[in-house]
């Protein structure tokens, strides 16, 4: 039995309010972060960094932002792509228009810009709910798609509408190699995940969840719906905006509005639902599932085909990828409608009880 919390007593409320109340969890996560920061750079190759790990980290950050809004505050959004775009383009404009603008500051300001628009587009949520709101947020998405294509100022009048960034440098550190880019993203992700965790275990997080679960009752106990909803929009958009800036600056290097299209919005929402709404961990599971699985299938299927002696055509692979990907989504939701994170915690619960069921 590897997983046991017996004998771990908490003697103060502070201890009980730790992020991980079970020591194994704490060491596991700390170990994971340490491994990500120290081990991975030695183990992974360039392909892994560039094509898998960096996008995974950045999208996990964005998914985290979406999760704050959708999972914690219950406001379904399909406009996340737009906020990524706002973050990216705002950061870009800060970089090109302000001399000597430090990179990290520009990114954070990108996040702030996104937060501003988040509040603006969050206003309808005060009246409109659920799926109606989800579809209404598409207005933000298409409006932004359009604005970044059509209004030259945002792209510094680049003829094609595509923008790119020059050198990346933060605090004298030139971020050039994939490893450096990876670490740069990792720092953002770890810090932001911690912030998110803090918020969700504090009063603001409870306000969001209360609004999510039953807004009338929340109001009756003194939660201001406007503050709770708009703060969720702001914080979530801030996260997403920063992720957008990372996506543009660090991952793509050069981008056009299509990089933040409505498909991206959907993708982020998938991550949250598959990973687990209202779970920080879930955002990471979801991002891993959505980013890595297609890549994995894409490479694994030809290999599998090779084993049984059939060569699968590229189209065949992509179609199979669609089918398997879709089926897995369905499968996991049937097994556990609350997402991978819940599946994970049930598995832990079983381990804890093992070998005695129930």
């Amino acid at each position, binding site marked *: 039995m590897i997983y046991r919390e017996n004998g771990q007593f908490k003697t103060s*409320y*502070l201890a*009980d*309010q730790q992020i991980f109340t079970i020591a194994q969890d704490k060491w596991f996560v700390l170990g994971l972060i340490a491994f990500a920061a120290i081990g991975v750079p030695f183990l992974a190759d360039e392909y892994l960094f560039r094509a898998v790990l960096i996008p995974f980290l950045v999208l996990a950050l964005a998914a985290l932002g979406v999760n704050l809004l959708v999972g914690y505050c219950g406001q379904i959004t399909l406009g996340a792509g737009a906020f990524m775009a706002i973050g990216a383009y705002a950061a870009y404009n800060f970089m090109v228009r302000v001399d000597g603008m430090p990179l990290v500051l520009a990114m954070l300001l990108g996040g702030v810009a996104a937060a501003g628009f988040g509040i603006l587009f969050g206003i309808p949520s005060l009246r409109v709910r659920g799926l109606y709101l989800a579809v209404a947020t598409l207005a933000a998405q298409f409006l932004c798609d359009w604005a970044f294509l059509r209004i030259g100022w945002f792209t510094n009048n680049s003829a094609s509408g595509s923008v790119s960034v020059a050198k990346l440098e933060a605090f004298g550190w030139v971020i050039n190699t994939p490893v450096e880019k990876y670490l740069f993203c990792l720092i953002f992700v770890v810090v932001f995940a911690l*912030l998110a965790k*803090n*918020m969700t275990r*504090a*009063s*603001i*997080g*409870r*306000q969001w*969840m*209360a609004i*999510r*679960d*039953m807004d*009338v*009752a*929340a*109001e*009756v*106990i*003194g*939660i*201001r*719906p406007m503050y709770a909803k708009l*703060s969720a929009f702001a*914080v979530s958009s801030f996260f997403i905006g920063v992720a957008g800036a990372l996506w543009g600056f660090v991952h793509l290097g050069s981008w056009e509005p299509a990089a933040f299209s409505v498909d991206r919005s959907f993708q982020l929402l998938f991550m949250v639902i598959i990973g687990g709404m*209202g779970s920080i961990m879930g955002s990471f599971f979801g991002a891993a599932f959505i980013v890595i699985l297609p890549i994995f299938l894409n490479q694994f299927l030809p290999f599998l085909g090779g084993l049984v002696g059939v060569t699968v055509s590229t189209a065949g692979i992509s179609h199979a990828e669609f089918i398997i990907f879709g089926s897995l989504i369905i499968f996991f939701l049937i097994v556990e409608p609350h997402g991978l994170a819940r599946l994970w915690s049930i598995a832990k619960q079983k381990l804890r009880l093992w070998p005695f069921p129930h």
Partner: protein
Amino acid sequence: MTNASNAAPAAAQGGRKFGDVILDLQNISLRFGGVKALTDISFNIREHEVRAIIGPNGAGKSSMLNVINGVYHPQEGKIMFRGQERKKMEPHMAAKQGIARTFQNIALFKGMSVLDNIMTGRNLRMKCNLFQQALWIGAARNEEIAHREKVEEIVDFLEIQHIRKTAVGALPYGLQKRVDLGRALAMEPEILLLDEPMAGMNVEEKQDMCRFILDISDQFGTTIVLIEHDMGVVMDISDRVVVLDYGKKIGDGTPDEVRNNQDVINAYLGSGH
């Protein structure tokens, strides 16, 4: 929760002391389209008393509570709170004035644990801003712990320690009602509105619940407004009872007066009581 948190005088056993009128409802009328939920109802609530509202189904009892805490806005009538006319207000403002409530169809936050549910009740009293909370710096952490202590007191008081960390969705009905009460208590309200807190409980559990209600009233001096269909409970623990029927007031007075009021017997109690 200790007495120190509320300066109410400990009521002496038996000789209960009522304060002044804290809430005065005057000629309240409430309509939903064609449905008249409340018609010209007036009654008052005194400090520290247990005020029961009874009446047949659909009489307008829950609507009355909704009026008091700002969920419904009556078309006519005045609400005087501590002698001042209260303007049209949203529920969260009523909460700020110290009005808390529980719900007939339990309205807990299903996705949260029992502790978190009760902690939301402390929300109004938590002052740290979003940035402090995000950074989890000293002030925020201390505040969190201070309030957590309060909440633990309530948990102890309601004897729900063992389910602290359970998600409320999975709890049986009766315990959910208790958590609902805990959440309202956490607000340290001046007026506590209870909508059928004992529905779906057996006698033993009702006894527990009565005990909690009376203790709240005694220890914290909280004013309690109670809706309940169990006449035994109402008659035993309330100080004054108002009776509604079809949105109209048909009786008001001490339990004994109400019990012997013929209108009330016809409309609600039946001759069995």
